[in-house]
C-alpha cells in the first residue's frame, strides 16, 4: 500500500467523519436533553439545502450564496421550533414519549420529503460551492468545499461544546437533560430550553445540508442516508455523550473510507453494521456511554 493510498483513505475518511459529526451532534443533543430521537433530523437537512438553493441559485431567486445560507439558517431555526411544537411538545407528559415521538418524527419526515418533492419537483439540484476549485491535502486532491467541511466541522463542534460548558443557557440545557425536576426547582424554564435545543439541533442539520449540498446532488431523500449514519453513530458513541458521538463520527468516517477502498462500495455499509453489532455486543453502552437512562 503506497503512501498516496493511505493519504487518500485518511482524507476521505476525515471528510466523511466531519459530515457525520455535524449531523450526529444535533441528534445527540436532542437525545441528551429531551430523551427522544428526532427521525426528521435528515429531512431538516434536506429542507435547508433546498431553501439555500432557491434563494441563491439563478434558477431560483438568485440572491447569491451568502443570502441563501442566511435565509436557510433562519428558516431552519423556525422549522426546529415548529417541529418541537407540533410533533414533540404534545407528548411531554406521556409515559411512552420515546416511542410516540419515533412515530411522530417519522411522520414529519414523510411530510417534509413529500412536501419538498411537491414544491421543488424531483429534478436534482446542486448548490454552488462556498469554496470553489480544488485543493491538495496530504498529497490528495479534494474539492475546496470538502476542505471547508474539514475545517468548519471542528470549529462548530468546539463552539457547541464551549456553549454547553460555560454559558448560563448551555449549562441549563445540560442540567435539564440530567434532571428536569431539579432544573425546575432552581428556576429553569424547562420547555423554553427544549425549544432552544431543538432550534440548535435543526441549525446543525441545516449547516450539514448547506455544506454537503454542493458536494452531493440534492434530492428529496438527500438527508435519509446521513440520518441513518448519524443514528448509528449516536448509539455507537454512547447515548448521552456528545464527546462519544463526535469520536464515533470520525471513527465511522475513517472505517467507512477504509472499507470502501478495500472491499468496495457495495459491501461497505453492511460491514459497518456488522462492526456496530460487534461493538454493542462487547460494550452495550457504546464507546463513552453511561449505563443509566
Amino acid at each position: 500500500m503506497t503512501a498516496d493510498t493511505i493519504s487518500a483513505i485518511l482524507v476521505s475518511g476525515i471528510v466523511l467523519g466531519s459530515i457525520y459529526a455535524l449531523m450526529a451532534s444535533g441528534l445527540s443533543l436532542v437525545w441528551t436533553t429531551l430523551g427522544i430521537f428526532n427521525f426528521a433530523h435528515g429531512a431538516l437537512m434536506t429542507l435547508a439545502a433546498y431553501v439555500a438553493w432557491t434563494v441563491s441559485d439563478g434558477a431560483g431567486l438568485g440572491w447569491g450564496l451568502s443570502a441563501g445560507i442566511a435565509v436557510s439558517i433562519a428558516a431552519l431555526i423556525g422549522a426546529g421550533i415548529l417541529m418541537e411544537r407540533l410533533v414533540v411538545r404534545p407528548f411531554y407528559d406521556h409515559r411512552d414519549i420515546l416511542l410516540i415521538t419515533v412515530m411522530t418524527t417519522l411522520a414529519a419526515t414523510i411530510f417534509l420529503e413529500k412536501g419538498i418533492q411537491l414544491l421543488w419537483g424531483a429534478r436534482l439540484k446542486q448548490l454552488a460551492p462556498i469554496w470553489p476549485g480544488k485543493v491538495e491535502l496530504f498529497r490528495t486532491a479534494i474539492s475546496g468545499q470538502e476542505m471547508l467541511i474539514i475545517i468548519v466541522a471542528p470549529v462548530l463542534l468546539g463552539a457547541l461544546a464551549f456553549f454547553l460548558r460555560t454559558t448560563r443557557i448551555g449549562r441549563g440545557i445540560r442540567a435539564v437533560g440530567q434532571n428536569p425536576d431539579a432544573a425546575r426547582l432552581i428556576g429553569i424554564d424547562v420547555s423554553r430550553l427544549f425549544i432552544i435545543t431543538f432550534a440548535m439541533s435543526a441549525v446543525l442539520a441545516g449547516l450539514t445540508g448547506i455544506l454537503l449540498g454542493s458536494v452531493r446532488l440534492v434530492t428529496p431523500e438527500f438527508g435519509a442516508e446521513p440520518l441513518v449514519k448519524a443514528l448509528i453513530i449516536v448509539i455507537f458513541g454512547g447515548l448521552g455523550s456528545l464527546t462519544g458521538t463526535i469520536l464515533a463520527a470520525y471513527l465511522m468516517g475513517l472505517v467507512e473510507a477504509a472499507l470502501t477502498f478495500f472491499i468496495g462500495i457495495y459491501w461497505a455499509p453492511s460491514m459497518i453494521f456488522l462492526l456496530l453489532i460487534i461493538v454493542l455486543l462487547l460494550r452495550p453502552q457504546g464507546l463513552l456511554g453511561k449505563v443509566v437512562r
Partner: protein
Amino acid sequence: MSDPANALEVDGLRAGYDMSDVLLGMSLHVGPQERVGLFGPNGHGKTTLLNTISKVIAPHAGRVLFMGEAIDGLPPQQIVARGLIHVAQANRLFPDMQIMEILELAAFTPRAQADRKANLDYVLGLFPRLAERRRQQCKTLSGGERQMLSIGVGLMCAPRMLMLDEPTLGLSPKLKDELAEAIAEISGRGIPLLLVEQDIAFILSLVDRMYLVDHGEISREIRRGGEVDHQEIMNMYFGADGAR
C-alpha cells in the same frame, strides 16, 4: 387566618398523583421570619405538600399565598423567581456536573444572578467541604456532601423562604449535627423556614412551631415549649393499638 404579613399561607390544598388525592385539604401558615416544622409518617403527604407548593405537581383545589400574593397559578420558574425555594428530598441534582458548575448554575433567575457572588461566598463559607471539592462531579459525592450541595443550591437561588424536605435523610448523627448547625445559621439570617423531618429531636431543636401531618391533613399544631404528646406520635406511627 389570612394575614398579608405571613411568608406562606396554604389554604385547603388538595393534590395527589393520578386520580387519588394525597393532600385532603391541607391548611397551614408560616409567619414572617418564622421556622415551622412538618412532622409525620411516610406517605401522609409532607413531600406532596412541598411538591404542590413549588408546582412540581399541580394542585386540584386550594390556594397558596407567598408574601401575600397568590402563587398557585404560576409555573415553577416564576415561583423560584419570587424567592420561594424548595430543596427536594434526596435530590440527586445533576450527576455529570461539577459542584462549582452546579452552584453557579443555581443562580439562574435574574434576581439570583445579581446576588451570585455574595451567595457563593456564603455557601462555601457555610460548607467548606464543598469548596474543597469544587471540581468534583456531583455523582461521586457522599450522601452528606450531596445534602450540603442541595442546600447550597437552594441558597444560590436567593431564597426569601426555604422549604427543606428531610435534609438529614440517611445521614450519620455527626453529619446531622453539622447540618442542624448550618440550618440554624441560615434561618438566623431571617429566612423563614418550612422544615420536613422524621427525627423529632432534630425538628424540635430547629423550629418555633410544628404541625403534625396525618393522612393528608394537619392533625395538630405544637408551639415551642408546648408539650409533645409522645403517645400521640406513637399512635400516628403504629396505630392506636400498637403503641400500647
